[in-house]
């Protein structure tokens, strides 16, 4: 574990332990963290929610303090003590004034809470989409993510790259959420609240992170066996990084003659039915696009690091990392798998 990460970890644990007194503490971190805490917002929607949540926490916290205080007082003050427990206390059946008071005060609190909440709902949900926005179509699959950039003509999987949005040149990202099979939910806590991906019911959400880096999250709607390993990685790039990434993604797949054997295996096996590698006959859409597989840090939607050993194990049997994943173990010889890995390793 790198020291930076350990620090983050420590910090998030600390913030977990001091939650009750958080109202006073300003937003903890601006940049990405290993812990996807909602208390470390790094994008406008998450920030507005964070501020709102502090306000609500303050109000509910005060209600708690008052009522729990009363309860504690009653329990201590009015507990029966020894001898005079014989006589019954005076019987009181009710009091209209008091009851009216504790009806009216909550009504007022509710009005305040509702108005504040409604304002934020409209601010986030109905924010107009600026011209400069980047559009990304997110398609949920059992158990991986497909990302399409219609204007840039890019298709990729599991790792979303978006540009950082600066105050001077805001470039928010608008996600159009679709599903290929069952319900999923896109949740990267530091960037925004979650929104569900529902078949036949397109949804939208937006993010505008400032600080570059890697933000983690995961599918937040139970979607079947491997719902737990449907992780999301959002890379927020500086504009330059983003442009060079996009440029690479737009290229055809690398055609390296050294890996010809692997390519032949790939094209003669069922792989082509499910995967696309642009520039080859592989046009399947059931599984992730592999054209630039090597540009991703993980495979299997975050189930394992993208290393040759892991690729080998994955192709032999995806169940090693992800039991229940919808890619079958193909029963290939070790030789074939080695060739495949060699081929896939060229797909930068």
């Amino acid at each position, binding site marked *: 574990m790198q020291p930076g990460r350990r620090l983050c*970890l420590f910090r998030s644990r600390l913030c977990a332990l001091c939650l009750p007194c958080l109202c006073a503490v300003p937003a903890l971190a601006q940049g990405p963290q290993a812990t996807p805490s909602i208390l470390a917002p790094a994008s406008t929607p998450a920030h507005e929610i964070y501020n709102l949540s502090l306000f609500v926490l303050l109000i509910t916290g005060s209600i708690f303090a008052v009522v729990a205080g009363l309860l504690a007082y009653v*329990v201590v003050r009015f507990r029966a003590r020894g001898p005079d427990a014989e006589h019954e206390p005076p019987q009181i059946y009710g009091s209209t004034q008091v009851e009216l008071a504790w009806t009216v005060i909550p009504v007022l609190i509710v009005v305040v809470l509702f108005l504040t909440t409604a304002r934020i709902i409209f601010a986030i949900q109905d924010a107009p989409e600026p011209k400069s926005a980047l559009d990304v179509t997110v398609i949920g699959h059992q158990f991986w993510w497909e990302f399409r950039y219609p204007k840039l003509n890019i298709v990729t999987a599991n790792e979303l790259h978006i540009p950082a949005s600066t105050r001077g040149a805001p470039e928010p990202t608008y996600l159009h959420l679709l599903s290929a099979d*069952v319900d999923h939910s896109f949740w990267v806590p530091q960037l925004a609240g979650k929104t569900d991906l529902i078949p036949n019911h397109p949804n939208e959400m937006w993010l505008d992170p400032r600080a570059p880096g890697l933000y983690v999250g995961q599918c937040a709607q139970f979607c079947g066996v491997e719902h737990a390993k449907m992780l999301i990685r959002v890379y927020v790039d500086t504009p330059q990084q983003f442009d060079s990434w996009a440029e690479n993604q737009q290229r055809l797949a690398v055609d390296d003659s050294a890996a010809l054997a692997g390519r032949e295996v790939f094209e003669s096996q069922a792989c082509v039915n499910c995967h696309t590698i642009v520039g080859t006959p592989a046009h399947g859409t059931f599984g992730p696009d592999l054209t630039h597989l090597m540009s991703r840090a993980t495979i299997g939607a975050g189930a394992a690091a993208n290393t040759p050993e892991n690729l080998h194990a994955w192709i032999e049997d995806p169940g090693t990392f992800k*039991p229940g994943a919808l890619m079958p173990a193909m029963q290939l010889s070790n030789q074939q798998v080695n060739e495949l890995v060699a081929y896939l390793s060229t797909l930068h």
Partner: protein
Amino acid sequence: MADHTLPIPGAITAAPSRGAALLEWLHGWVVTVDHKRLGILYVVYAIFFLLVAGAEALAMRIQLAIPGNHFVGPETYNELFTMHGTTMVFLVGMPILFGFANYLVPLMVGARDMAFPRLNAFSFWLTAFGGLLLYFSFIGGFGLYGMGNAPDVGWFAYAPLTAKAFSPGHNTDYWALSLIVMGFGTLGTAINIIATTLSMRCRGMTLFRMPLFVWLMLVVSGLTLITITPLTAAQIMLLIDRYVGGHFFDTQSGGSAVVWIHFFWIFGHPEVYVLVMPAFGIASEIIPVFSRKAIFGYPAMVAASVGIAFVSLGVWAHHMFTVGMTSVGNAFFVLSTMMVGIPTGIKIFNWLATMWGGKIRFATPMLFATGFLFQFLIAGLTGIMLSVAPWDWQLHNSYFVIAHFHYVLVGGIVFCIFAAIYYWYPKATGRMLSETLGHWHFWLFLIGFHITFDTMHLVGILGMPRSIYTYEADRGWNTLNMIISAGGMIQGIAVLIFAWNLIDSFLHGKEAGNDPWDAWTLEWSTPSPPPAYNFGADPVVRSRRPLWDLKHPNDPDWKYEQ
């Protein structure tokens, strides 16, 4: 048995053999239509399933204690939380509360039995059969194709995950069928309770003299009529889809997944109030007796209960803030949800006012009732946090939600159930539960509860989603999950102590007498346990606390009640 022709003197009076007596006894329980026996059957049935579903919860906690654990696989884990949730709600919560109602409502309104005793027995056996059907899926889920397979789609079973294409085999069918069967059982009980409270009250027991528990059961039963039935309807649609190829929730043919979500929560939200309101009723009986004061603001308590029931019908979409409703729709459901806090607040304040100025005796039932008050307050406030739609976009389907509803379901309802068992056990069995074990049970459960569920709020805020069988080691959730799991084990020990207390006190407990708590409602005027037809002569009442009037002839309630 064999020689009918040669009666041997003495043989007739000789006790029947042990086996025969046991059979006789069992037969008596199986064919009974007595509301008290049925009530006890419900409660025993529910406690059994509390152990089963609790064991499932502990298995989940073992799996989640450390990241990347292999205690159970993903398939098993998904079955565990589906069965845990379904069992706790439908086989523990509903039957135990309806069991108390069965036992107590006729006694409290001075009736000899429920309005329809045979329907009552039928409802119980439907419920019991539904439970067996659900658990039979462990054996029969995949039928001939292989080993058993329990439902694994979550207790809200969102479409289209339940469609044949994504959920092959028969486990989802078992789930839907058993809920339909139990739904009819519940419907029967609800009808019965309504008819009993409206038509079987003894002389003088006007509606506004009914004990609050009876009032709450009346409201709950009314609510049940219109909330369980939508679930039944939705399950029928699901089965039509799965068995005859309908398209209600088939997104390929224009069907809508969102419609299922609406239908489920149109049932699901009022359902949680169906669960909590009997608990309110229990608290409203226990708190006055142990504070030695009449309930404060009885009319307001009744009005608040009816109010909660009404408002709860219009808040269901607060479970759906993330499915993409319009902003106006979201705002509407924020408002309606927050409004529930007002009548609920009235209840909390009235309980506090009842305790205020009293002489509170902290016997075990009152300990649990006080725990309920404290925890329900927190649970309600986290509910308010969830009802803040933008915040819910973050918190939805995270462990924060799990924490919220376990605070209500365990910290509120289970605490009240324990309070009720400690309170009425002497009436039902004639023996007191051990106070020493009761205190051990209370404190261990309280500590375990807080260790588990307080911590869950934190992992939720740190971004841990629910329904995941494992998590990454670098997310900063490891320690907290370990703590949660440890708390779960402490709760398990407490529940085992409780189970032992039930059995041990039944055999060796102190004799209870008719009225061990010096209480005021009619059930305490009968012997413990009450005879078959409850009352020797039909009682007549003229206030909310008939036994208070009796014990304080100079200072009776009916002089003061509004």
